[in-house]
């Protein structure tokens, strides 16, 4: 028996472009268009509907990174250019997400180094990039200006705007034509409010990706799942202020007790399984970019998505 998979929904998720190929004014070998969904994830029956993108997360100061990843990736973690290159050609990710963890050091002031780091990652991979700026409101303005400038033309995804601090990141996106990750603490209405604030400051809807905040599996993930579902339902029912693609990064996954306390022989496997299961659940809830930190999670997610869906939707390049 055939079901109508669109129920009585009338609206779709806004499409957002990530990355820019040479023809589009950037230097990426490919670019993505995400969004466009008209029903729940993995229910699209039309040809060419896309599987979620997998973004591999790296950082420029590994002192703030999980020891599990540091052990697995080895020396790579000390050179984010090389790390990005390996993530691209070796690990097979769709995007690279760079966290500028160096800015988390006390009294960080070496703003020019931020630009250099972004440029080095851009030159070492030709995948579209996500850049996570500072964690410190005092230096936001300078850091985001630098990120925006260094990635001009590349249609970066910049993170992370929050209700209390979104002006610098929105300004960088508007000045240099990037998109923004808008994060709210697992709350549909706060997500909507932040999107409205971004809209009021002048950022257009097709430059916003919602991050509903992702708790890791067993540590509040079900709240994130519910928020994502509700955002998706609202969007499909016509709420344009919530009709943006969703990104998920369960950043605390690798530090959960079960992984921390696992024996050395099985720790790596548990970490991967935990990250994979969280990522898969997030994708099913409607996330269109799944971020991971363990390289071995990528093929597992890839296989799971393939069994659920056809390939990704490339709009430029190969």
């Amino acid at each position, binding site marked *: 028996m055939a079901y109508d998979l669109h129920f009585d929904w009338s609206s779709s998720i806004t499409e957002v472009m990530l990355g820019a190929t040479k023809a589009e004014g950037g230097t990426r070998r490919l670019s993505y268009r995400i969004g466009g969904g008209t029903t729940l994830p993995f229910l699209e029956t039309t040809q060419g509907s896309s599987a979620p993108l997998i973004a591999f997360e790296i950082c420029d100061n590994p002192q703030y990174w999980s020891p599990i990843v540091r052990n697995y990736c080895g020396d790579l973690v000390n050179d984010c250019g090389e790390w990005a290159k390996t993530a691209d050609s070796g690990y097979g990710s769709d995007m690279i997400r760079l966290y500028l963890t160096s800015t988390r050091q006390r009294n960080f002031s070496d703003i020019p180094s931020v630009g250099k780091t972004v440029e080095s990652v851009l030159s070492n991979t030709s995948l579209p990039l996500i850049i996570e700026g500072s964690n410190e409101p005092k230096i936001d303005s300078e850091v985001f200006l630098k990120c925006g400038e260094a990635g001009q033309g590349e249609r970066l995804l910049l993170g992370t705007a929050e209700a209390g601090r979104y002006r610098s990141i929105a*300004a960088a996106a*508007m*000045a240099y034509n990037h998109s923004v990750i808008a994060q709210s603490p697992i709350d*549909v*209405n706060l997500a909507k409010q932040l999107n409205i604030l971004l809209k009021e400051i*002048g950022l257009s809807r097709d430059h916003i990706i919602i991050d509903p905040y992702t708790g890791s599996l067993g540590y509040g993930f079900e709240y994130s799942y519910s928020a994502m579902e509700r955002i998706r339902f609202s969007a499909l029912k016509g709420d344009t202020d919530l009709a943006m693609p969703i990104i998920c990064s369960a950043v605390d996954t690798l530090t959960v007790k079960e992984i921390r306390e696992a024996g050395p022989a099985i720790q790596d496997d548990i970490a991967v399984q935990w990250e994979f299961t969280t990522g898969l659940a997030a994708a099913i809830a409607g996330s269109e970019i799944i971020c991971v930190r363990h390289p071995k999670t990528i093929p597992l997610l890839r296989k799971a998505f393939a069994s659920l869906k056809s390939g990704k939707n490339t709009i430029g390049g190969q």
Partner: protein
Amino acid sequence: MTDVELAIKKGESQLKAEITKIEGTFSYEDTAYHLPISYALTGIPVYDRITSLDVFSRTKDNPLVASECILAKETAQEGKEVSPYTGFIGDSIIRKLGYSLVDGSILGLALIVGSPKSSGTAAAICRELQEKYMLTFLAGPVVPSLSSAGVKLGLDYRLIPLGSKTLHGVHFVDIIARVAMMFGGVTPGDINRLLTYAAERAKAIVIVFPGLSDEEIALVDGMRVLGFPILSLGDYSGGAWIPSTPEEIVSTGMESKGIRVNVTAIPIPMGCSPAFEGKSIRKEEMYVEFGGGRSPAFELLCMKNSNEIVDGQVTVIGPEIDSMVEGSANPLAIIIEVAGKTMKKDYEPVLERRIHNFVNYGEGSWHVAQRDLIWVRLSKEAVAKGVKIEHLGKLLASKFRMDFPQLLDAVSVTLITDKEKVLAAKKEAELVYEERDARIKGMRDGDVNIYYSCTLCQTFAPNHVCVITPERPALCGAISWLDGKIAYEMSPSGANQPIEKGPEINAQNGEFEGVNRFVKKASHGEIDRCSLYSVMEYPMTCCGCFECIALMLPEVNGIMVVNREFKGLTPSGMSFSTLAGTIGGGAQTPGFAGISKGYILSDRFLQGEGGIERLVWMPAQLKEELKSRLSKKLAEQGKPDLFDKIADETNAATIEDLMVYMDRIKHPALTMKPLV
């Protein structure tokens, strides 16, 4: 004295004569926007005589366009001026500058032109602009004047010397035109969009010293179209320029363009944060108290004209804390005067309610109740740290400015502790309270076309939508129609949105097309219809905050109301909390409605079910609370005996008791149209 009007006329014709003499080709480097003003206005790239004249005539001989073309030609002929002058500023720097504007690290832009009589005056104005996070551009004789006074110029100092002539001031406008195209989504040639952007988004002011020529006056006056206030210092009369003094010119300019500096820290010797809001000060911890029935005290917030009050001023009339006896009750009047361009008299009571929150934000200050019922305490700990009566005033003045930056430009606070003066001021305050009550009381749902929504509770009841009308406050009792209106004006994207009620579908039930449309959307498609005055058909959804629940009792053909405070079982067989669990969460449950206490006193109460005669039962405590107002109202409606016919738990604890009671007293609900 220069007559501005006359000078504009002469200047414009001189500019016209000059532009017709333009020869050769000209363009700027490092820009994708050609001559940006001309390009933004018409979408036409100007680079020679023909294109100049074309744009000039298309813009109806605009003096900005003329000046831009003339300057571009001169620059091409004579070359760029040397340092410190910047001349035309390229796109990449404008992008950064636009970034700082969006980002908020620059609050606004200022242009200064003319010849200051004393360089000290100009330097002082620049310093004030720097302190207030303005980015200032300079053109003409003002530049050497500042240099001679030792003022450092350059982007790092937020003072940018554009050029040696006033004509270079045109770059100020080309910068704003480019910011509009880069950041404001203004397409070249879309004049309306450009003007709207410039007027609403570009926070720019122009300060004019004496000595401008006619052409320069025409150029500067041309900027008024973009909504920039032109403030002048001496020597100019007439026109739409605003005369000012060196001391006031910056604040007048910023104020008239709505540019505000945010207050961030409150200079008082105690912590101030919402974190302290719930902390009460017990008798043993208290140093002194005010009001609470122990001494006369009241609070009042009034609107004034901005020239009547000094922002931040705090005055204490009467004894300070050090001359008060520990543990004593003292008289207190808190009088707050506010001014702001968008402030309205209607907002007064809503803002006045915030005194309660703000005083409680203080680590050692505590406040309850409102108007002339207030009760305020200061703790021993706070007084030991040096907190005085004066600091309450500082706290209030700062918090009002911080929390309502869009609304208030100036706040001053007067605190009176002298008994005679408090009593005298209280008499006047009581008149104001009466006047306000009359204003809200008189309002009818039929008088307005706009109702307000409240979706604050969607955080936990995702599909709940409150519809607030003048005669039906929010079900929590905390937000009236006026509050909703004001909340919307203060925060246009907030949880209170206007609802155009639209054509009537059912007058008795209070069902409107516009309300239905809004509720459908705001409930994410879950609720199709909403009747404002009915419990039985399509009642409003309930979040969980309702003060009372109204529910149908089919056995007696009536409706009962139970308030949150009532802990026992109601004749329905259920307690308040069981009922609340049944109907809350954003659901629409026919036969049940969440309501505020105030709504029981409304003429619209139970209108859909035939009116207040349907009301058969209320807890005794709620009856007592409403008694004076409700029995007065019923008497006015010619039903003086109805109040006593409403049963409570003392004479009807169960549905059986209630049936017997109602039969005995012949409750009118029994003979009304069947509810089901």
